[in-house]
């Protein structure tokens, strides 16, 4: 399945993601990691802790609708994986980000931006295994 190369939209999106990370640090002193925000919202340390995570998540859900307001359509979501594989993938992502203390936003963006050696190692590792998995599924298994 081909997708269109979108350097400008992707760069603008990336800058907004980075800006959100900076603002969260400025206002709340926290790392903008989707894994940490979600985990802490499900198992909050306190009511105060739950409130900011829930507010952040609620704001995130509004993101596609801001896109809709500006573009007249919702962002494209095409899932190549069949449902059972989607569920297996989701479960593995959940296991991996919990063991590895973070995902693309926490390690890949915030961690690399603060030059954390753990985040560089984590990002290198998950980029590698994602690439290998895609290659295996698309070119070895599917071929």
């Amino acid at each position, binding site marked *: *399945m081909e*997708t269109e*190369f*979108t*350097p400008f939209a*992707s760069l603008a*999106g*990336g800058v*907004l993601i*980075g800006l*959100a*990370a*900076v*603002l*969260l*640090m400025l206002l*709340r*002193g926290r790392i903008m990691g*989707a894994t940490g925000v*979600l985990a802490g919202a499900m198992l909050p340390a306190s009511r105060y802790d739950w409130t*900011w995570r829930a*507010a*952040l998540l609620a*704001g*995130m*859900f*509004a993101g596609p609708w*801001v896109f809709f307001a500006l573009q007249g359509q919702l*962002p*494209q*979501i*095409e899932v190549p*994986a069949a*449902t059972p594989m*989607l*569920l297996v*993938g*989701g479960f*593995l*992502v*959940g*296991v*991996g980000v*919990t*063991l*590895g203390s973070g*995902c693309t*936003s926490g*390690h890949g963006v915030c961690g*690399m*931006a603060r030059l954390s050696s*753990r985040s560089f190692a*984590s990002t290198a*590792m998950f980029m590698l295994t*994602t*690439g290998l*998995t895609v290659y295996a*599924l*698309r*070119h070895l298994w599917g071929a």
Partner: protein
Amino acid sequence: MRTLWTFFIGVIFGTGIAFSGMANPAKVINFFDVAGTWDPSLAFVMGGAVVTAFIGYRLVWRRAAPIYEPTFDIPQKTTLDARLLTGAGIFGVGWGIAGFCPGGALPALGTLNTQVILFVLALIAGMLATRFVSSALARQQSPTSAAQ
């Protein structure tokens, strides 16, 4: 007020994800499919996000403390361990299979797309199962420290 501002930070993040293409598994998987239908867009997402955060963090850290909290809460650990690398490795396999990462899927949940909902439910199941198993293992290995 701070809750409202935090909500707006979520809106900025979610809007960024929507424009970036990170909420679209077909696009994410194509970024990694260098040998096939390669779409390099996500390098621009990562570049834009990391450079913005790198510069912005340094400006923010000139302050003694964040605006609404007494201290910055930043991970202090610097040691690489097997748990970090194993976790990252497993995450990558899951990301390659499903095409969603947590930061891409959570804003996409706002569209109430069935596949996104299914992914997030499986994600939560994986997160809770891992927490449960690792805390059970920790209790088994050191009953005294768990009791403290």
